[in-house]
């Protein structure tokens, strides 16, 4: 075997590297490098032409200097020159320099591409490989433009050497990934599939990667690869280990190739052909059987290679999710690994079992391993293994084992690593709610969460416990008693103070009969925490105090005394001061009846999305702007309060008794009362969009916002524009282009001989803005133009713009209609156009991991939450077009979530003023039948239905 001596071939380089290594300090190193750079520069600039060897040596030195972390600003030309050398070693250094220091200098790119071109057509396999490796390493768009047409030819040409084929396949893959548009599928595609039959397993290995990627994009074109892959796999797994000689690794036959073939098969559903299917099943069984055989070697390499194949086979079994026997066998095999002495295997088994838990066939088998998994949680030394154990417990949880699992997670939480606490808290909260039969257990669990890991309990979690307590009167007394006891602890978490303040404010009366928790004791207990709390919590406590005044007249003077103190009335924080002033005043002037009405117990919350979804919304992809995130954080705060505040202001005009219903029935938010109370006492601010609350507009608030003037009477006209309910338009409503706007925002919505109506729209959360462009196509004036807010006259050939502001208050089906009237040549024209304002415009895309998706998908499993439609394709079934449409629809397209890569899976949140509705969708194309199946799951049946109707029209 070759033994390479240090830096042989280039003595100068070895000396230089030694010098650098011998430098005692950074300064010495820099000095030595600068000396070398000066030397090289002078050689390159010198009159004497350098021979190839010297050029190679200096370029290589430059490369070494660059890899040490120094900038290199010359030598590129010399490196490019090396490409045209006919010596391998010189070419190799030239190519290496280019691959490592990619330079987008356009002159050089042309020269580099020339060099590559020459080598590609040289018929010298060594040179061809250098060229192909360089393209694969750089993979720039420019290279794709130059070589994408050429490489497939090299790959499938009959005379190409095996090793060149390997490089060509992967080079093509790189170009395809960088610039798929530049790699057109051609007749080569079919020939590439047949490389799976190649005698040379290295070629098969490279081709399998290429085909897997291509098949993800165009499954139909590569469908024949399934039978070839199964055949190949079958030959490998049944071969005696010596058959494959070069490709046998520690007695395992071609492990990497097997893994790749099993991956390729995961791009497709189980084969429909019975013979093929049973052959595949046999392969999978053989792989499972081998796991039970005694090892052929004690080396870890042997077992790793064997298990790499085994885990990939299990992935395929899970992906198919159709063979109960295989699923259960896989699960039992993983069960053995849970007890293995190798940490790697325990980790992988936990991870893999997590996906098995979601299959109906194996869920029960997975559950039998609960004790082992709990033990892993307690004993594993590697936090990532414990993390997998938590994930698996979460995945295997159902009604039968929820109490045990939640208890174990809680006790783990006490010592859990900080990095994973928040996630565990969330998981516990979700499980406790989902599987609560007995809500006292739920309350205990959440309070325990706050006690153990209060810092990691997000708002969603404590909001949720309050919603549940308010909505279930059977648990209110217990909750009051429990929080009262929990608050006895000398140091309790602020989140507990919040929950305690809220619950005692509402239900303190239920425990006030006991002298140990008399009103005064309750008040003193809460107030003893007051000074240690942050401003929002203090604000909440003040509201609890005013609620106490109503519940317990006997503590009124005590509380008034507290409110009256300077530290409240003159608090530096304006919110606290305002609350103190108003509450004090309210308690002084309002009669008992009024107080009782105003401060009555909170009515049940409308069934809202659980906190899980709120959390899920925050789990957004990195592509989102941080700014949006901040807005979103206010989801439970200002966005909704805005409305509450306005409602409050509006109703506050009337007698206060009337206000209660308005206040308390319309409140969608939990912490409403605490944020909106102060506003009550203030004179109402006039709403600048009075029409917004007109009963005719249950859905939209339209604000005319003309470009030129605000004094224009157009505002009134605009109200007319949308009063489709009250005044049916005389013209037939045009909606021919309506559906074209479902997945896009800009375009021409209406056009006749006279008028062209263009739209540009933008949406963000529950707000939107539409720019309408009225184009007069004639050469004559339009008179008395009733829609454009600016001017009743539109000159011939002119375009007028109008802006509409839109707010989505709740989910809706009907779109608003734009009525336009004008005079053209004496005749009155009436046009009505349905404006493309659809529910999906208020989508915000949500990125999420596969696990979250399926968890959520399962949660939305109620029949009324799902709407499904199967329909015929109206357009050619093009993957890219479909993707673009789904993205245009407004959801995030989730990659690698659906086990079948041909399917599309998306997630998003519809923002309305009052609520946000999480939506999951799945589109399954069946290219053979030219059909689609579209499934929508959301927490609201009306939303599911509407979205399904809208989207199904698009394909």
């Amino acid at each position: 075997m070759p033994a390479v001596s240090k830096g042989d071939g280039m003595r100068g380089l070895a000396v230089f590297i030694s010098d650098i290594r011998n430098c005692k300090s950074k300064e010495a190193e820099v000095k030595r490098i600068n000396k070398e750079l000066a030397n090289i520069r002078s050689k390159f600039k010198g009159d004497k032409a350098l021979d190839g060897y010297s050029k190679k040596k200096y370029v290589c030195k430059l490369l070494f200097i660059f890899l040490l972390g120094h900038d290199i600003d010359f030598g590129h030309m010399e490196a490019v020159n090396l490409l045209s050398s006919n010596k391998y070693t010189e070419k190799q250094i030239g190519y290496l320099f280019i691959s490592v220091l990619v330079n987008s200098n356009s002159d050089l790119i042309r020269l580099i591409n020339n060099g590559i071109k020459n080598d590609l057509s040289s018929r010298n396999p060594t040179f061809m490989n250098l060229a192909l490796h360089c393209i694969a390493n750089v993979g720039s768009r420019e290279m794709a433009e130059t070589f994408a047409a050429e490489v497939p030819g090299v790959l499938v040409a009959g005379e190409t050497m095996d090793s060149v084929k390997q490089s060509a396949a992967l080079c093509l893959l790189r170009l395809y990934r960088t610039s798929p548009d530049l790699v057109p599928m051609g007749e080569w595609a079919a020939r590439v599939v047949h490389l799976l039959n190649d005698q040379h397993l290295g070629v098969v290995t490279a081709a399998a990667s290429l085909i897997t990627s291509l098949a993800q994009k165009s499954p139909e074109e590569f469908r024949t690869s399934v039978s070839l892959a199964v055949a190949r796999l079958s030959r490998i797994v049944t071969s005696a280990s010596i058959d494959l000689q070069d490709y046998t690794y520690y007695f395992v036959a071609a492990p990497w190739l097997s893994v790749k073939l099993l991956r390729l098969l995961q791009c497709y559903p189980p084969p429909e052909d019975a013979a093929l299917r049973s052959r595949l099943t046999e392969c999978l069984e053989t792989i499972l059987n081998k796991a039970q055989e005694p090892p052929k070697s004690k080396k870890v390499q042997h077992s790793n290679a064997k298990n790499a194949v085994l885990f990939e086979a299990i992935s395929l079994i899970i992906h198919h999710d159709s063979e109960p026997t295989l699923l259960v066998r896989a699960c039992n095999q993983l069960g053995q690994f849970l007890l293995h002495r190798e940490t790697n295997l325990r980790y992988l088994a936990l991870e893999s079992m997590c996906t098995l838990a979601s299959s109906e066939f194996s869920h029960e088998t997975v559950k039998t391993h609960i004790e082992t998994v709990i033990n892993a949680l307690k004993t594993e030394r590697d936090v990532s293994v414990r993390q997998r154990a938590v994930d698996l417990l979460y995945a295997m949880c159902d009604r039968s084992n929820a109490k045990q699992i939640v208890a174990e997670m809680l006790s783990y939480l006490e010592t859990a690593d900080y990095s994973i606490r928040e996630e565990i808290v969330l998981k516990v909260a979700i499980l406790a709610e989902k599987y609560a039969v007995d809500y006292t257990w739920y309350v205990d669990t959440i309070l325990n969460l706050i006690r153990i890991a209060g810092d990691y309990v997000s708002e969603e979690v404590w909001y949720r416990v309050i919603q549940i307590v308010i909505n279930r009167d059977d648990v209110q007394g217990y909750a009051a008693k429990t929080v009262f006891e929990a608050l006895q602890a000398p140091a309790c978490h602020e989140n507990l103070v919040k929950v305690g303040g809220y619950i005692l404010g509402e239900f303190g009366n239920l425990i006030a009969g006991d002298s140990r928790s008399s009103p005064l004791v309750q008040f003193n207990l809460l107030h003893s925490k007051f000074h240690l709390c942050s401003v929002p919590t203090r604000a909440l406590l003040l509201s609890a105090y005013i609620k106490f005044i109503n519940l317990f007249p006997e503590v009124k003077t005590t509380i008034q005394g507290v409110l009256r103190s300077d530290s409240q009335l003159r608090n530096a924080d304006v919110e606290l001061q305002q609350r103190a002033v108003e509450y004090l005043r309210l308690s002084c002037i309002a009669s008992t009846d009024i107080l009782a009405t105003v401060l009555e117990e909170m009515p049940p919350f409308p069934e809202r999305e659980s906190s899980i979804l709120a959390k899920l919304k925050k789990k957004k992809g990195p592509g989102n702007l941080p700014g949006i995130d901040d807005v979103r954080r206010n989801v439970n705060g200002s966005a909704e309060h805005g409305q509450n505040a306005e409602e409050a202001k509006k109703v506050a005009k009337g007698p206060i008794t009337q206000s209660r219903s308005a206040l308390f029935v319309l409140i969608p938010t939990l912490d409403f009362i605490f944020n909106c109370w102060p506003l009550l006492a203030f004179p109402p601010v006039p709403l600048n969009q009075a029409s917004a609350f007109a009963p005719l507009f249950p859905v939209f608030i339209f604000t005319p916002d003309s470009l030129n003037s605000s004094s224009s009477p157009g505002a009134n006209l605009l109200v007319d524009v949308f009063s489709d309910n009250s005044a049916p338009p005389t013209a037939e409503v045009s909606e021919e282009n309506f559906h074209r706007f479902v997945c896009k925002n800009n375009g021409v919505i209406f056009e006749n001989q006279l008028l062209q109506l263009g739209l540009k729209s933008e949406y963000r959360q529950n707000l939107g803005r539409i720019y309408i462009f009225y184009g007069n196509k004639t050469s004559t004036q339009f008179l008395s133009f009733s829609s454009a807010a600016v001017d009743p006259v539109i000159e011939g050939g002119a375009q007028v713009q109008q802006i509409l502001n839109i707010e989505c208050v709740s989910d809706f089906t009907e779109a608003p209609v734009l009525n336009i009237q004008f005079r053209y040549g004496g005749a009155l024209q009436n046009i009505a156009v349905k404006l493309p304002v659809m529910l999906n415009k208020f989508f915000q895309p949500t990125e999420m991991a596969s696990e979250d998706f399926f968890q959520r998908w399962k949660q939305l499993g109620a029949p009324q939450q799902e709407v499904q439609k199967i329909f015929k394709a109206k357009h050619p079934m093009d993957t890219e077009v479909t993707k673009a449409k789904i993205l245009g629809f407004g959801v995030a397209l989730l990659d690698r979530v659906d086990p079948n890569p041909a399917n599309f899976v998306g997630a998003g949140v519809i923002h309305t003023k009052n609520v946000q509705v999480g939506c999951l969708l799945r589109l399954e194309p069946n290219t053979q039948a030219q059909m689609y199946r579209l499934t929508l799951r959301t927490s609201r049946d009306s939303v599911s239905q509407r979205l399904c109707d809208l989207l199904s029209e698009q394909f």
Partner: protein
Amino acid sequence: LKLLIRFILIQNRAGKTRLAKWYMQFDDDEKQKLIEEVHAVVTVRDAKHTNFVEFRNFKIIYRRYAGLYFCICVDVTDNNLAYLEGIHNFVEVLNEYFHNVCELDLVFNFYKVYTVVDEMFLAGEIRETSQTKVLKQLLMLQSLE
């Protein structure tokens, strides 16, 4: 579309990079950051830990040989053990090629290490797994010098 291998790094215990092979576009600052983060993540782990560690949205599969860490960064859904043995296969080839490879071989022959990598991994994929075939090819290239 996702690449399989995002990068391959060979680092010593002190954090000096002995090979960095990138299979997706990163700018130089980002590369430096990744190198430092990977070093911080793997060097704190001991033999009781797995050879896998979550890293940003990816995972690192790594193995330590004497003072050198061989790290491969792949997609989270990828096959851990296949890459773990992929590393070992690569190390065995280096060992044959350099005749009992040591860290210094990688320093003085850095430009040859790139050739070995390209023979075994290309475009972020496993290209050739047969040690015999790879060594034969390397021997042939060696003879061209």
